[in-house]
C-alpha cells in the first residue's frame, strides 16, 4: 500500500464514525477499527522491505522551489512508531467502545481519535520536515479535541487548553528550529538532512536550531519544566490517556529526538541539555508519582518519569544507549497502555480512582488484578517482564556515563529514580488490589466484560512474551529501528536477555526493588512530609503566566484597537506620510528629464471643475445629497481626463462605474440621515485639515516628480505592446493584458467582485431578517415623493432603449479585443440597461421579469473563465494560456476568434451578476407594500376591464 494512502487513511476514515454513529455505536466503532486495521495491514506489507534495510518512499513534489514536497518514507524507526500508533490504536478503539457510556458522543470520539492517529502517522512517515511540522501541529490540535472531549468538565477544558498552549508554543519554537536546520543544509528533506552531520554541527546556527527543536520535543514529551501539562491532560477519558500517553502524543517528541539523533546528537551541548533534562524529569516524575493518590495522576507522573528515562538515554549520545531507548519505547508503550486501561477499568467499575478509597480489589476483580499486577511489575523493573530488560540496559548505561567529571552523579540519581519507580509501581498493586476488602467503595466493583479487558490482556501477554523471548519477538524490530536512529547498519553489541551475570546494573536493580518496597512501607510518613513541604504548584504558575499574558495583550489591544476608527485612520495616515517623508529625505532624486505636455484651455477648465467640485465637497459635505452631485462631477471629469490622456478603455469603464456607483449611493442615501451633524471640535478639524493637506501635498508632489522623469528601469510594457498582436491576437493592448497576459489576475478579480456581491446579498438577508424589516416597511421617506412613481415617459424611454443598450453592450464586448471595450465595460453597460428598468418600472415589475438569478450569473462567469483557463491544460499548456485564429464564413468577412474571448465572456457575466446582485440587494431595503406597483405602465384598457370584473365578482361574492 502506498505510504500516501497509509497516511491518508485515518483522515479519510475520520469521516465515517461521525456519520455512521446514526447506525449505532458498534457500527461507528467498527468503521474506526476497520480504517485502522486497513492502515495497519498496509503498513505490515512493507515489513519485509524495511527489514532488508531498504527505504519505502512515496514522493510528490508540490512546490519544489520552496522545498515544500509531500515526501513520505518508511524506515525502521518509522515502522516501529507506525506499528505502535496503529496497533495500540486498534486496541484503544476496542477498549473505548466499552469504556464510553451511552451519554458520550461516540462518533465524535472516534473521529477525533482517527484525526489524531492520522496526524501521528504523518509525523512518523514524513520525509520532509515542513510536512512533519504540519502533522506536528495537527497532533497538538487533534489532541486538544481529545483531551477536552468531556466538554462539560472544567478540568477537561482547562487541561486541553493547557496541553495546547504548552505543546503548541513548543511547536512554534520547533518550526523556527526546523527552518534554521533546513537553511543550514539547503534542503527540507530528512533524507538530505540526515546525511549532513558535520555541516550541521559545525554551523554557528547549530546551537539555536538545537535549542529550538528541543523546545518542541521537550514540550511535547512533557520534559521538565514543561511536564506539568501531562497530568492535567488526565481529565480526558481514559482511552485517550492510554493512547496519548503510552504510544503516541508524548512519544512524538522522543520520536523526533531519535529521528534527528544522527545529526544532532554526539555533541557536548546535546549531552548536557538532553541527558540532564531527561535525568531530572525521570527523578522528579518518579518522586511526585509516589505521592499521588489519583490512579491516573500516578500513572501520568510515572509516564513523565519514563519519558525522562528515554530522553536521558537518547541524550547520552552513545549508540548502545540509543538501542536501549528504542527498546524502552516499545516496552513502555505496552505496559503503560495496559496500566492506563486497568486504571480505567477500576474507575469504571468502582467509580473512583482515588487510591485512598480503594484496596482489596483482588478478589472482586481477579482478571483486572492479574493484568494490572503484571503490567505494574514490568514498570517496576521486575524480571521476567519486559520493563526489567530495558531498565537494566538503562542502568548499565548510566554507570558508564560521566557528568562533568562526576562518575556517580548520573548512576546515583538514576538509582534513586528507579527506587521511586519501583515504589509507585508496588503502590499501584498493593494499595489498589491487595490489602483487606473494604465495604465503602462507591459501588461494588467486579470484573468488566471481555470487551474491556481484552485489549489490556493482549498487551500484558506482550509484556510477558517480550520479557521471556525478547530476541525472537522484538529483536529484529529493535535492530532495524536502532539502526535507523543511529544512522548506520553497524549496531553496537547488545543482547536482549534476562540474565547478564552479576553486573552493576543487576545490583542497582536489586537495590531499587528492595528500596522501593522499603519506601512503600514508609509511604504514610513520606506523604505527611511531602504535604508539609512547600512546593510550587504548576497550574497556579501556569494560570498566572497565562493571566498576565492575557492582560498584557488585552492592554495592548485596547490601546491600539479601542474601536475609534477615526483614530486608526489618523495613525495610519500620519505614519504613511511620515514614512514617505523619511524615504524622501534620505533618498535622492534625479533632475527632471521629460518635457511637460502643453496645457490648453479645455483641460484647464476641466481642472477648475474638478478642483472646484472637490473643494465644494469638503465645504458642503454636511449636505449629503449635494456632495453626491458634486462627486458625480468629479467622476465625470476623471472619465474625460482618461479619455483625453489616451486611455479610452479607462474612460469607458470609469463613466459606467460612475453611473452605477451614483445609483448605489443615491439609493443608500434614502435610508441614511440627509445631513452630517457637526461633531468634531474646531481643533480637531484643523488637525485633520493639516494632516490632509500634508498627505495631499506629498501625494501630488510624488506623482509630479514621477511624471517629470523617465522610467528608471526598462519597463515591461514594451513586451506587452510587442506581443499583444502576435501572442494574444488582439490590437487593444489593455484588453489583451486583462484577458491574456495577466488573465490570472483578472480571474482573481472577478472572483473578488463576485464575493463582494455575495457579501452584500448576505448582509441584506441578515439585516432584513431582524426587526429592521419592520422599520423599513413603515419608513417615511425623507423627501416628499413625486406623485408618479413610474412616470410614463421614463418607462417608455427605458423600454425602448433596452434593446439598444443591450446592442451597445454586445458591440462593446465584441470589439473589445481590438478596440476599446471588453467584458468589464460591456458588463457594466448591460447592468445599467437592466438597472434602468428597475428604476423606471419598479422593483416588482423588474423582478417578475427576471429570467435568471444573479448569483448564478456570477457563478457561471467565474466557471466559464475557469473552464477557459483549464482548457489550456488539455493542450499541455499552463493554466489560462490563450489561443486564437481566423475564420472565414462565406457571407461574412474573415474574422478572428480567440479563447480569450471566452474568458472575457466569463468576466462579462461575473461583472454583470455582481453589479446587479449588489444593487438588487440594496433596493430590497426600499421595498414597501404600499408603493409596489404591479403595473408600472398602466395603459392596458383590457386590464382595467378585468380588474373591474374582479371587483364586480368580489362584490357579488
Amino acid at each position, binding site marked *: 500500500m502506498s505510504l500516501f494512502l497509509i497516511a491518508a487513511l485515518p483522515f479519510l476514515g475520520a469521516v465515517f464514525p461521525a456519520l455512521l454513529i446514526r447506525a449505532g455505536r458498534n457500527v461507528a466503532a467498527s468503521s474506526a477499527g476497520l480504517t485502522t486495521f486497513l492502515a495497519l495491514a498496509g503498513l505490515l506489507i512493507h515489513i519485509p522491505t524495511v527489514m532488508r534495510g531498504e527505504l519505502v518512499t512515496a514522493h510528490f513534489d508540490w512546490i519544489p522551489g520552496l522545498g515544500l514536497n509531500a515526501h513520505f518514507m518508511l524506515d525502521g524507526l518509522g515502522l516501529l512508531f507506525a506499528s505502535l500508533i496503529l496497533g495500540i490504536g486498534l486496541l484503544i478503539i476496542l477498549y473505548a467502545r466499552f469504556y464510553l457510556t451511552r451519554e458520550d458522543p461516540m462518533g465524535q470520539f472516534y473521529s477525533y481519535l482517527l484525526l489524531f492517529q492520522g496526524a501521528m502517522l504523518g509525523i512518523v512517515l514524513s520525509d520532509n520536515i515542513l510536512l512533519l511540522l504540519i502533522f506536528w501541529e495537527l497532533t497538538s490540535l487533534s489532541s486538544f479535541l481529545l483531551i477536552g472531549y468531556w466538554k462539560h468538565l472544567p478540568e477537561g477544558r482547562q487541561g486541553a487548553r493547557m496541553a495546547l498552549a504548552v505543546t503548541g508554543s513548543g511547536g512554534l519554537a520547533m518550526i523556527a528550529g526546523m527552518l534554521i536546520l533546513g537553511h543550514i543544509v539547503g534542503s527540507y528533506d530528512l533524507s538530505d538532512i540526515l546525511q549532513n552531520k558535520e555541516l550541521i554541527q559545525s554551523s554557528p546556527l547549530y546551537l539555536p536550531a538545537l535549542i529550538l527543536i528541543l523546545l518542541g520535543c521537550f514540550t511535547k514529551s512533557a520534559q521538565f519544566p514543561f511536564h506539568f501539562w501531562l497530568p492535567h491532560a488526565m481529565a480526558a477519558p481514559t482511552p485517550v490517556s492510554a493512547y496519548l500517553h503510552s504510544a503516541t502524543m508524548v512519544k512524538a517528541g522522543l520520536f523526533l529526538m531519535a529521528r534527528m539523533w544522527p545529526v544532532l546528537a554526539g555533541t557536548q551541548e546535546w549531552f548536557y541539555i538532553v541527558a540532564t533534562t531527561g535525568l531530572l524529569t525521570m527523578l522528579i516524575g518518579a518522586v511526585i508519582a509516589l505521592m499521588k493518590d489519583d490512579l491516573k495522576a500516578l500513572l501520568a507522573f510515572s509516564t513523565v518519569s519514563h519519558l525522562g528515562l528515554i530522553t536521558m538515554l537518547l541524550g547520552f549520545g552513545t549508540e548502545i544507549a540509543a538501542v536501549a531507548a528504542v527498546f524502552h519505547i516499545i516496552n513502555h508503550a505496552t505496559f503503560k497502555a495496559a496500566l492506563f486501561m486497568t486504571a480505567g477499568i477500576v474507575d469504571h467499575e468502582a467509580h473512583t480512582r482515588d487510591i485512598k478509597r480503594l484496596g482489596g480489589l483482588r478478589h472482586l476483580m481477579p482478571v483486572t488484578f492479574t493484568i494490572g499486577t503484571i503490567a505494574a511489575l514490568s514498570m517496576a523493573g521486575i524480571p521476567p517482564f519486559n520493563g526489567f530488560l530495558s531498565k537494566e540496559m538503562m542502568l548499565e548505561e548510566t554507570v558508564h556515563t560521566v557528568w562533568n567529571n562526576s562518575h556517580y552523579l548520573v548512576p546515583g540519581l538514576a538509582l534513586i529514580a528507579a527506587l521511586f519507580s519501583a515504589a509507585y509501581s508496588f503502590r499501584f498493586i498493593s494499595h489498589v488490589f491487595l490489602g483487606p476488602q473494604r465495604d465503602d467503595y462507591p459501588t461494588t466493583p467486579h470484573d468488566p466484560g471481555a470487551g474491556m479487558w481484552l485489549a489490556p490482556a493482549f498487551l500484558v501477554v506482550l509484556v510477558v512474551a517480550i520479557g521471556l523471548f525478547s530476541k525472537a519477538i522484538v529483536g529484529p524490530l529493535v535492530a532495524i529501528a536502532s539502526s535507523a536512529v543511529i544512522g548506520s547498519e553497524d549496531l553496537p553489541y547488545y543482547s536482549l536477555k534476562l540474565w547478564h551475570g552479576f553486573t552493576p546494573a543487576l545490583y542497582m536493580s536489586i537495590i531499587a526493588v528492595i528500596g522501593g518496597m522499603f519506601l512503600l512501607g514508609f509511604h504514610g510518613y513520606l506523604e505527611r512530609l511531602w504535604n508539609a513541604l512547600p512546593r510550587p504548584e504548576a497550574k497556579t504558575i501556569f494560570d498566572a503566566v497565562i493571566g498576565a499574558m492575557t492582560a498584557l495583550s488585552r492592554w495592548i489591544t485596547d490601546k491600539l484597537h*479601542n474601536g475609534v476608527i*477615526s*483614530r486608526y*485612520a489618523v495613525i495610519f*495616515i500620519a505614519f504613511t506620510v511620515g514614512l514617505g517623508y523619511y524615504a524622501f529625505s534620505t533618498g535622492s532624486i534625479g533632475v527632471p528629464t521629460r518635457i*511637460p505636455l502643453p*496645457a490648453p484651455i479645455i483641460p484647464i477648465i476641466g*481642472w477648475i471643475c474638478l*478642483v472646484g467640485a472637490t473643494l465644494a*465637497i469638503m465645504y458642503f*459635505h454636511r449636505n449629503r445629497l449635494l456632495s453626491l452631485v458634486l*462627486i458625480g462631477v468629479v467622476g465625470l471629469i*476623471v472619465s474625460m*481626463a482618461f479619455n483625453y*490622456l*489616451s486611455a*479610452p*478603455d479607462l474612460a469607458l*469603464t470609469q463613466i459606467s462605474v460612475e453611473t452605477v456607483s451614483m445609483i*448605489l*449611493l443615491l439609493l443608500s442615501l434614502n*435610508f*441614511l440621515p440627509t445631513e*452630517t*451633524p457637526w461633531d*468634531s*471640535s474646531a*481643533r*480637531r478639524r484643523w488637525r*485633520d485639515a493639516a494632516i490632509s493637506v500634508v498627505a*495631499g501635498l506629498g*501625494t*501630488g508632489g510624488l*506623482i509630479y516628480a514621477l*511624471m*517629470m522623469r523617465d522610467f528608471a528601469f526598462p519597463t515591461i510594457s514594451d513586451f*506587452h*505592446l510587442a506581443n499583444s498582436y502576435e501572442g494574444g491576437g488582439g*490590437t*487593444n493592448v*489593455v484588453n489583451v*493584458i*486583462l484577458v491574456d497576459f495577466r488573465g490570472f489576475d483578472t480571474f482573481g*478579480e472577478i472572483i*473578488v*467582485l463576485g464575493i*463582494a*456581491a455575495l*457579501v*452584500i446579498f448576505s*448582509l*441584506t438577508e441578515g*439585516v432584513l431578517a431582524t426587526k*429592521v424589516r419592520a422599520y423599513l416597511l413603515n419608513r417615511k421617506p425623507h423627501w416628499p415623493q413625486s406623485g408618479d412613481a413610474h412616470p410614463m415617459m421614463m418607462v417608455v424611454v427605458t423600454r425602448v432603449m433596452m434593446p439598444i443598450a443591450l446592442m451597445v453592450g454586445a458591440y462593446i464586448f465584441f470589439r473589445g479585443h481590438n478596440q476599446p471595450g471588453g467584458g*468589464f465595460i460591456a458588463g*457594466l453597460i448591460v447592468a445599467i440597461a437592466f438597472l434602468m428598468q428597475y428604476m423606471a418600472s419598479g422593483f416588482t415589475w423588474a423582478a417578475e421579469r427576471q429570467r435568471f438569478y444573479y448569483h448564478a450569473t456570477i457563478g457561471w462567469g467565474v466557471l466559464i473563465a475557469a473552464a477557459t483557463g483549464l482548457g489550456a491544460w488539455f493542450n499541455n499548456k499552463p493554466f489560462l494560456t490563450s489561443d486564437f485564429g481566423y475564420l472565414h464564413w462565406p457571407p461574412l468577412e474573415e474574422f478572428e476568434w480567440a479563447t480569450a474571448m471566452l474568458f472575457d465572456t466569463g468576466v462579462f457575466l461575473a*461583472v454583470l451578476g*455582481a453589479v446587479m446582485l449588489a*444593487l438588487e*440587494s440594496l433596493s430590497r431595503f426600499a421595498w414597501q407594500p404600499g408603493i409596489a406597483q404591479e403595473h408600472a405602465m398602466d395603459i392596458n384598457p383590457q386590464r382595467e376591464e378585468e380588474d373591474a370584473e374582479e371587483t364586480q365578482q368580489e362584490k357579488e361574492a
Partner: protein
Amino acid sequence: MEALVASAVGVLTAAGVFLILRRRTFPVILGLSLLTYAVNIFLFATGRLALNAPPVLNKYADVPYTDPLPQALVLTAIVISFGMTAVIVMIALSAYLSTKNDHIDMTAHETVDEAGEDA
C-alpha cells in the same frame, strides 16, 4: 499638463483624507470615493502622460503608444473599487438601520478620547 494632473491628485487626496477622518459613515464613504479617484489617477499617471497615443495597435502606421500596463491595472481597480464601495455602503447602511446610529467610532470603551472633543 503634468502640473494639472499632479495638483488634481493632491487635491483629491487631501479632500479624501479629510473626509475619511470624519466620524460618520457617509462622509467616510465619500472620502474613500475621492481617494479612489486620486489613487487611480496616480496609478495611471505612473505610465506617464501622453496625448493621442492610445495603446490600440495600428496596423497601418507606426505611431507611438502610451504605456498600457497601468491602464490595465487601473481598469480592474476601478471595477473592484466599485465592489468595495458597494460593500462598505451596505455595511454602513446595515449598521445604521440596526442601531440608528451612523458613528464610525465605537463609544462603548472609548477609553482614549482626545480631550473635550465629542459632541
